[in-house]
């Protein structure tokens, strides 16, 4: 039996524009912080390293190659990379440790989204023959999903505004976030529609930054003398890419992943949901089976700061750190990828 624990997590400030800082400069501080918090001097202290990033955000092939320069990978390290949110880099590392091929791992994700036009870059995630030539941008697709949900009665514009209100309010307690403050639902609904039915505040800000995490076996965490949060369940599922082939107002893949991860096998004190758009938080919260006893996105969530390629890892890190600090006993973290919540990961974390 190899139970796996999260022992440290570090996140950079979530910035609208990191300016002249390049990816290596964004990564180095968080990697050092996560390693140091685990009592490790450098990357040689872990058995495996895995990262998540996306070439297109950098506008050049091999974005992750420069990431290796931030690590101090001499002597050479056991290392891998997913072209996905770093939550999936965590998953690859989790399997590596489960298989007994490593006892510890460093995971990191990074993105500078500011240099490009993010919604249009993401339009190239679509089927290259039918959808991508239409340049359907990610905000418009999310708006289509929000419309489907409102029209089918799954949620209302008022509930979407309540999500934004809570996000910005919670974000006041998070020094890394980008958008924060006190807003009333009435005030938010008075704002004009941007891409109907979404208002600008229903959409995530464009953000630059990086985050990093150290995980290990529970035995190793004890050996290191570190407090930790245990990954008691982790599952992910993908759905069809064809928007017409699924009900966009609900998330079947979250339901499946939540069931397999064991979300309902105990009370959930806190949840971090990787919902870049306000209505998506409502869809995922329902699919996870959470009720109002669970505090959602105390960090402010992606609406307050959305680091592409690590916003999913950030959710897992946020829940883990609150458990380590004793603020919660059992929490759930959600990560997503693709247009309209296409691919979803659910992680259940518990206090030791």
């Amino acid at each position, binding site marked *: 039996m190899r139970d796996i624990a999260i022992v440290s997590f570090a996140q950079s400030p979530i910035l609208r524009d990191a300016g002249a800082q390049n990816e290596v400069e964004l990564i180095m501080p968080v990697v050092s912080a996560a390693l140091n918090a685990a009592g490790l001097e450098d990357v040689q202290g872990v058995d495996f390293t895995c990262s998540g990033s996306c070439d297109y955000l950098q506008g050049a*092939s091999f974005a992750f190659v420069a990431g*290796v320069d931030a690590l101090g990978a001499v002597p050479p390290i056991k290392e891998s990379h997913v072209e996905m949110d770093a939550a999936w880099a965590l998953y690859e590392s989790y399997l590596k440790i489960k298989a007994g091929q490593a006892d510890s791992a460093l995971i990191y994700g990074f993105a500078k989204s500011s240099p490009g036009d993010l919604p249009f870059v993401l339009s190239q995630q679509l089927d290259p023959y039918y959808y991508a030539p239409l340049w359907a941008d990610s905000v418009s697709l999310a708006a289509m999903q929000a419309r489907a949900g409102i029209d089918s009665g799954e949620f209302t514009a008022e509930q979407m505004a309540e999500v934004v209100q809570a996000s910005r309010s919670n974000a006041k307690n998070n020094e890394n976030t980008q958008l924060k403050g006190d807003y009333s639902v009435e005030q938010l609904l008075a704002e004009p529609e941007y891409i109907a039915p979404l208002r600008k505040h229903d959409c995530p800000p464009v953000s630059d930054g990086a985050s990093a995490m150290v995980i290990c076996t529970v035995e190793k965490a004890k050996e290191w003398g570190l407090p930790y949060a245990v990954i008691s369940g982790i599952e992910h599922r993908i759905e069809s890419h064809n928007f017409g082939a699924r009900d966009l107002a609900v998330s079947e893949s979250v339901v499946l992943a939540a069931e397999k991860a064991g979300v309902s096998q105990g009370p959930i004190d806190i949840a971090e949901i990787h919902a870049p758009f306000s209505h998506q938080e409502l869809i995922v919260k329902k699919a996870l089976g959470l009720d109002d006893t669970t505090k959602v996105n105390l960090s402010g969530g992606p609406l307050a700061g959305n680091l592409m390629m690590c916003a999913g890892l950030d959710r897992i890190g946020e829940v883990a750190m609150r458990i380590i600090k004793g603020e919660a006993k059992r929490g759930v973290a959600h990560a997503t990828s693709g247009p309209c919540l296409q691919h979803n990961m659910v992680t259940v974390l518990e206090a030791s």
Partner: protein
Amino acid sequence: MSDNNKAGVLAAVVGVGQTKYQTKRGDVSIAGMVREAAVNALADAELTWDDIDAVVIGKAPDMFEGIVMPELYLADALGCNGKPMMRVHTAGSVGGSTAIVAATHVESGVYDRVLTVSFEKQSESNAMWALSNPQPFSPHLNAGAGGYFAPIIREYIRRSGAPLDVGIRVATKDRIHGSKNPLAHLQLPDITEEQVAESPMLWDPLRFLEACPSSDGACAMVIVNEELADKATKQPAWIRGTAMRSEPTMYAGREEVNPQAGRDCAADVYKQAGITNPREQIDCAEIYVPFSWYEPMWLENLGFAEEGEGWKLTMEGVTSLHEGGDTPWNPSGGVLSSNPIGASGMIRFAEAAQQVRGECGDHQVPNAKTAMGHAYGGGAQFYAMWIVSSEKPE
């Protein structure tokens, strides 16, 4: 799926599927092409889509086809809806890394049967352009891969004193091997060393016929746990060891001719597989040789020869199947005969598996029991390797 708490489960390849490799697969979309490889692998494994627990996909940079994170669009084509899917990207080594990540899915005990697929459809893009786009803030050479590696090859020649026709020998040998493999892109059964020598010089000392082609194609494998492999009707290829290593592109004192990451990766995979003398214990190898001179260089890097001596094995015919060499390298024709970049590493791993399964037809190495698959990428800084065997480990 299995109990989450098992560790160190044995895994084996029970199905391999490839497409024909060619300059342009105009008859299929990317989705159609990856599905073709996957269907072939499922048929070989005598399994259906319903039997698969998870899909692990790999390809080289998204810019090669101009699609951001294409795994999202490919979920439908690969029967993933409602299942887990992962996308690996480790530069040119990605096909090998993807196979290793898929193997780890099974070895972790979390999954019983995993489908893994790697692909590249180079005809829908311009790889030279995609590789020449500068990284912000970084110096770059608009030289493509050959331009990057040629100076390193020249340094190898200087150090080893190898005669200048070693690369020609490798290029000719791998194309003759490829002519025995009906899936290989280049079919040049009558190629001669004179033809290679007379082909245009691209990046001194690499001539046109010493460089890999640009191919469309996909490769897939089904990897299962011990219990299911034992029940397979065809010979499984047991995975005896897997290893990955990375080092930075540039650092003070970096050994680019014989990189440390490659040596460490080989040492790791040999230790797992119980190999103390690769030249004697490995019957054949599929090694990532996109430019001819990387055969002698990797013979040394992987410990088949002492440093400075690799070219002698090549010249003695040790790595040639048709000359009866005792350690054939790239009997399938290798990357020099087919190069759908993202798939090329997985093809090496899959061909190694096919050799120990005895499924290689005209390019079968007689009595191959233990084989090596190898891939490298980036500035020769990312490595993925596996050893497979017809014999189940004890």
